[in-house]
């Protein structure tokens, strides 16, 4: 007799057991996923809190770098601004600490740590950054004491022709010189080391460079032949000619001055042709002429007051008008608006202006003739001579560093420094005996470039007393 047996209880229980193990595994894996998703939620929240720590530290930096004190901090919003408070701060299950280390006075290493406990497991997120005191105001380098300058070194340019003109920007000098075959007329000199200056770059200009002015990355040269030449000096080691303008008439360019977007050029006399030109240099590479004028004689240096642009002051060869004030408001129709007549027929070579005072230097007027003249130009239409002193032919005057520098032929002292804080009193505070007459001068707060007729020492580097 056969009996088809049903499943025994044992078998059923076994089947149920196996099934529940399988189900259990599935359920636990879901629980794990669930937990994992919570961890990822906490992680993103924690990350954002840590990031907030960094951002808050940045906001505190923007308020005051001094508040970033080394140590461990919490952050809090107080009075709607972030500030450090305590050694940590908590939000829900998260604890945040900001650690600040100061490797140097203007640097902070910021570490923002957020920690929490997730299902019994300690977790943390750490963000780190470096914050700099980048808005720290840096005092400009001290100008040194220019009332007591000294000769630091000299530079001998190739060939034996005089250097004629100079401009300075920081410790870089831009030098123009007499032309000579086979040699260059425009030099860039690095006098960062005042005792061993070096020639950085040079350019052949094919003409005498009587005047140099530099703005931005361009140098403007007043030259013989083509009167205005523009040189790109963005690469100091290799200046390149951008453009050269040949103006009507044959008068050489004598001097250039720049104020804002305007460039002023003076020239040697050539008949009825213009001797004074005004250019717009808003596009520095291509000056546009705004106007020109014939002022009745050849012109030497030109200078403008730093306080106003309506008048240019020109040292002139015109015997009745050694100083000419030209209203340049409308360059299309310019003429001599005011002038000063010095006795005798000596030409004025040099002019400098500061505020409402002009300094006029002339050729040697012989005997007790006064070559250095202080002129009140508060009313430019009627300049008045308020003080004078006798030197010898003054070739260049620069107003810089709160002082007036005059380069001259005077054999004993080719460079004289005046403190003109009282314009009625000519106060020569320093003199320098250089090896030859000073023909041009470029001044910055750090260096002076005196260019001379000494063919072995064309450029002489001046430094202030410390």
């Amino acid at each position: 007799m056969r009996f088809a047996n049903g499943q025994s209880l044992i078998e059923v229980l076994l089947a149920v057991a196996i099934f529940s193990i399988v189900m259990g595994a599935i359920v636990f894996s879901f629980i794990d996923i669930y937990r994992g998703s919570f961890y990822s939620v906490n992680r993103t929240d924690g990350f954002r809190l840590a990031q907030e720590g960094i951002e808050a530290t940045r906001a505190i930096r923007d308020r005051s770098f001094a508040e970033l004190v080394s140590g461990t901090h919490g952050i809090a919003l107080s009075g709607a601004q972030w500030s450090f408070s305590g050694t940590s701060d908590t939000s829900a299950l998260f604890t945040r600490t900001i650690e600040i280390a100061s490797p140097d006075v203007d640097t902070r290493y910021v570490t923002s740590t957020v920690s929490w406990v997730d299902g019994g497991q300690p977790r943390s997120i750490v963000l780190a950054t470096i914050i700099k005191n980048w808005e720290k105001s840096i005092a400009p380098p001290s100008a040194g004491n220019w009332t007591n300058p000294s000769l630091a070194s000299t530079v001998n340019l190739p060939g034996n022709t005089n250097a004629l003109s100079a401009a300075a920007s920081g410790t870089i000098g831009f030098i123009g010189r007499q032309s000579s075959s086979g040699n260059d007329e425009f030099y860039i000199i690095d006098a960062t080391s005042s005792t061993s200056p070096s020639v950085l770059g040079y350019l052949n200009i094919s003409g005498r460079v009587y005047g140099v002015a530099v703005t931005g990355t361009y140098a403007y040269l007043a030259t013989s032949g083509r009167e205005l030449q523009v040189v790109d000096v963005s690469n100091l080691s290799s200046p390149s000619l951008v453009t050269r303008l040949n103006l009507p008439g044959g008068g050489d360019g004598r001097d250039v001055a720049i104020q804002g977007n305007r460039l002023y050029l003076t020239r040697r006399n050539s008949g009825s042709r213009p001797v004074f030109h005004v250019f717009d240099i808003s596009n520095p590479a291509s000056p546009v002429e705004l106007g020109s004028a014939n002022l009745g004689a050849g012109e030497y240096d030109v200078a403008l007051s730093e306080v106003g642009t309506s008048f240019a002051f020109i040292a002139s060869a015109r015997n009745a008008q050694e100083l000419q004030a030209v209203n340049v408001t409308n360059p299309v129709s310019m003429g001599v608006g005011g002038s000063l007549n010095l006795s005798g027929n000596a030409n004025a070579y040099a002019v400098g202006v500061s505020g409402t005072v002009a300094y006029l230097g002339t050729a040697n007027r012989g005997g007790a003739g006064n070559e250095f003249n202080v002129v009140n130009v508060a009313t430019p239409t009627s300049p008045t001579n308020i003080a004078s002193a006798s030197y010898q032919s003054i070739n260049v005057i620069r107003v810089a560093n709160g002082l007036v520098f005059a380069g001259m032929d005077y054999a004993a002292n080719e460079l004289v420094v005046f403190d003109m804080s009282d314009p009625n009193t000519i106060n020569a505070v320093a003199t320098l005996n250089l090896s030859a007459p000073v023909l041009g001068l470029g001044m910055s707060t750090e260096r002076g470039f005196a260019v001379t007729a000494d063919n072995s020492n064309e450029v002489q580097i001046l430094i202030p007393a410390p």
Partner: protein
Amino acid sequence: MKYHQGFTLIETLFYIMILSVFLSISSALLIQVLQGMQKTDAVYAVNEGGSSAMTRMLTTIRNADSVTLPLQGATSSQLTLTMPGTSSNPTIFLVENEVLKVKEGTAATSTLTAKTIRIKDIVFTNVAATSSPGSIHIDMSVSSTASDIGTGNAPENIFTGSATIRRRL
């Protein structure tokens, strides 16, 4: 004569009892698992949607020129930023019908959060110091639109974030 011996009544009742207990347990588990999955999805949507919206706002703040609204020290439910690019200036973040929206320049308003989540509340605080560039603290409360899963309430999360403008004009 052969007889197939059937189950006894007792046995049958016993089997049915075991089976029903087992079925009820397993179906309850299954329901739990399914609800758990739904809830995970909802949590994920809240977290992901909230995070990406927050990141978008913080990044935009960092790249802004300045903060127009809220004023320094004040709070607002709308953030107006002055941006460097003309096409995105101004950029406005605001919540409309529980959806976070952004309006860049003259372009039409576009939405930043999906329909699966609701922005229940958003507060922008201008925490910048005087004469400092803008610094904004954001509090945003986000919940899922899946209203009621199982016995629990809709998942929600509070997002906070802060950003300080990098540019200096």
